[in-house]
């Protein structure tokens, strides 16, 4: 049984050089518009109960695709076949009226989704409990934080298990606790047979929630397969872009002085490598290597290469240097480039975003002589290991056993 079937789907927008040209065309005086294709030849079938992650760059056509699937937008060609009731959480702000309470807004939103009064009334307590708004539920929505709005919106959209659930990045606004709660409910619905379509920029969430991923690029399906394969492909796709961004950032950093040092030695490039591929997405608990390309302006005998990993808030998470590692460094010739590699047999970082700072300085610490200090040389993401969901910045292998305690 196919739950969602998309055949030959295409979407184009008409663009007119000026509004008056549209009038000419309406009056039958020639064709003036140019077609701008957002989606072309999209074909895929999603079976009942499957959960599929839609990934792709900004502007690749993901949102347009979802809007067509939910029926908010009409396709220019092709067709969408839906095998059941659909519920969609499209964007932030489901259109809550600021002057009315959460409760009143829930009723209106539920009616708008086609639910009957009895259906909402039976579940209103459940909806309130899931959103965890407390007293705020009966206060006007204008005093809600954006997180609270998303909580309520998700709670309404999923009050009744839909046959097809579409979630479009909206969850990213909620805090970690609520995200986990939402993922939990999504998992429950999946087990009960709901088909899930999940759009996210978070490879971690796609890996842990979906059993298939579809990569949309330039309005078409570029790759369709297991989340791991598709995400690897996606990462490879965005590497040139990421490198360009890093390059741009470097120039900005240089201007802002976040990079400092005497310049006797310089870091040319920093990157993570997994299986010899450059990447910015690492897996918790998997091996990874950090490559630092360095060069010296004059021959150097005594120097230290240091790295420091910081979390999103700028807290130090892990740092070390060749001095503390008691690794002997080879003397450098002037003008040549050397590769310094820090290999992590197991990367024990928890799933989150991090930045990496690299430093080249004289032996003991950077106060003795700072050659090159580069804040946020690379930013990277750590995604959860397959089948293992943890929170926090560290990844600790852990075993669990349960037995009767001796009396």
């Amino acid at each position, binding site marked *: 049984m196919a739950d969602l079937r998309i055949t030959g789907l295409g979407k184009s927008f008409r663009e007119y050089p000026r509004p008056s040209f549209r009038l000419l065309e309406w009056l039958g005086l020639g064709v003036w518009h140019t077609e701008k294709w957002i989606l072309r030849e999209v074909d895929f079938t999603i079976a009942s109960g499957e959960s599929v992650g839609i990934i792709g760059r900004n502007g690749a056509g993901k949102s347009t695709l979802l809007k067509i699937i939910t*029926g*908010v*937008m*009409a396709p220019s060609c092709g067709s969408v076949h839906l095998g059941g009731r659909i519920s969609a959480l499209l964007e932030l702000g489901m259109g809550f009226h600021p002057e*009315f309470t959460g409760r009143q807004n829930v*009723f*209106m939103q539920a*009616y*708008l989704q086609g639910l*009957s009064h009895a259906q909402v009334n039976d579940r209103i307590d459940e909806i309130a409990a899931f959103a965890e708004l407390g007293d705020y539920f009966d206060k006007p929505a204008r005093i809600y934080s954006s997180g609270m709005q998303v909580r309520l919106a998700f709670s309404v959209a999923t009050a009744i298990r839909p046959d097809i659930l579409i979630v479009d990045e909206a969850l990213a606004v909620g805090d970690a606790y609520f995200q986990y709660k939402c993922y939990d409910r999504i998992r429950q619905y999946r087990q009960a047979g709901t088909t899930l379509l999940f759009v996210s920029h978070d490879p971690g969430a796609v890996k842990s929630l979906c059993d298939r991923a579809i990569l949309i690029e330039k309005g078409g399906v570029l790759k369709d397969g297991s989340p791991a394969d598709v995400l690897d492909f996606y990462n490879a796709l965005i590497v040139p872009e990421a490198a360009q961004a890093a390059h741009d950032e470097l120039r900005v950093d240089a201007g802002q002085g976040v990079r400092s040092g005497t310049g006797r030695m310089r870091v040319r490039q920093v990157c993570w490598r997994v299986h010899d591929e450059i990447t910015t997405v690492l897996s918790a608990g998997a091996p990874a290597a950090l490559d630092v390309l360095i060069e010296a302006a004059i021959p150097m005998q005594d120097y230290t290469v240091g790295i420091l990993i910081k979390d999103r808030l700028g807290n130090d998470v892990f740092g070390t240097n060749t001095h503390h590692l008691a690794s002997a460094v080879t003397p450098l010739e002037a003008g040549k480039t050397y590769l310094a590699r820090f290999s992590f047999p197991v990367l024990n970082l928890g799933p989150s975003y991090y930045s990496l700072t690299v430093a080249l300085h004289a032996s003991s610490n950077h106060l003795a002589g700072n050659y090159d200090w580069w804040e946020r040389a690379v930013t990277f993401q750590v995604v959860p290991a397959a089948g293992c969901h943890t929170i926090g910045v560290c990844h600790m292998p852990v075993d669990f056993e349960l037995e009767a305690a001796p009396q």
Partner: protein
Amino acid sequence: MTSFMQEIKQLWHYRRFIAGSVVREFRSRFKRSLLGALWLLLAPFAMILIYTLIFSHVMQARVPGASQPYSYSIFICAGLLPWQWFSELVTRNTGLFLDNASLIKKNNFPRMVLPVINFLSSGVNFALSWGIFCGFLLLSGAWPGWIMLLILPLLALQAIFASALGFFLGVVNVFFRDVGNAVALVFQFWFWLTPIVYSFKSLPAWLSPYLQMNPMTPLITAYHAVIVDAAPPDWASLDVVALPALGLLALSTWVYRKASAQIMDEI
């Protein structure tokens, strides 16, 4: 015909949303105000008061052939209140898609719900002011009697005309925003080209054939006949409204079917 029945069924399914939207609109108008719902009644009350005081007492205006002191204010209100509903409904429907863009872009629901909400919201506004007007008629002893019920088919015809016209303009307004501005301007002229504050009978003879082409002329004249003269309206003259109303209904349905996909792209 089956698709029409389906539309009705869908509207019925969304009745809670329709009712909720109408109630919400009124409640949001007097939220956080001290007098609350009283404001809804004060506006029409003030208007009736002004026309009575200024025209009947200060300016001593009289309708030809009527001697009562309040006859002019009754004459004005009988035409002005339905006109206000007409103008509000057309204006609201002109903004139907643009004003509800955020709702339309995020939710998939039968779009027919929106004109129904506009009809009901503006209808409630009209009913409130009309209720006050009826109270005034009773108190001043000018109540025309059960013949008053004849205004119901007149109002129904007017609502169909206004909804269809507004809906058509609403579709065009999505693509040419000039329409919204133009409607405001045209209505100013239309008001004075319709015998609301003056009597059709008092016009020079050469002008009346032109004014009779205005669909609102027979409607307003009919309200005047029922309320001021307590006489049945000239039903035959209403073809100038009925035919355009049916034509616009067909036209707006056709235009919407053709343009609905592009409307969603443009808003």
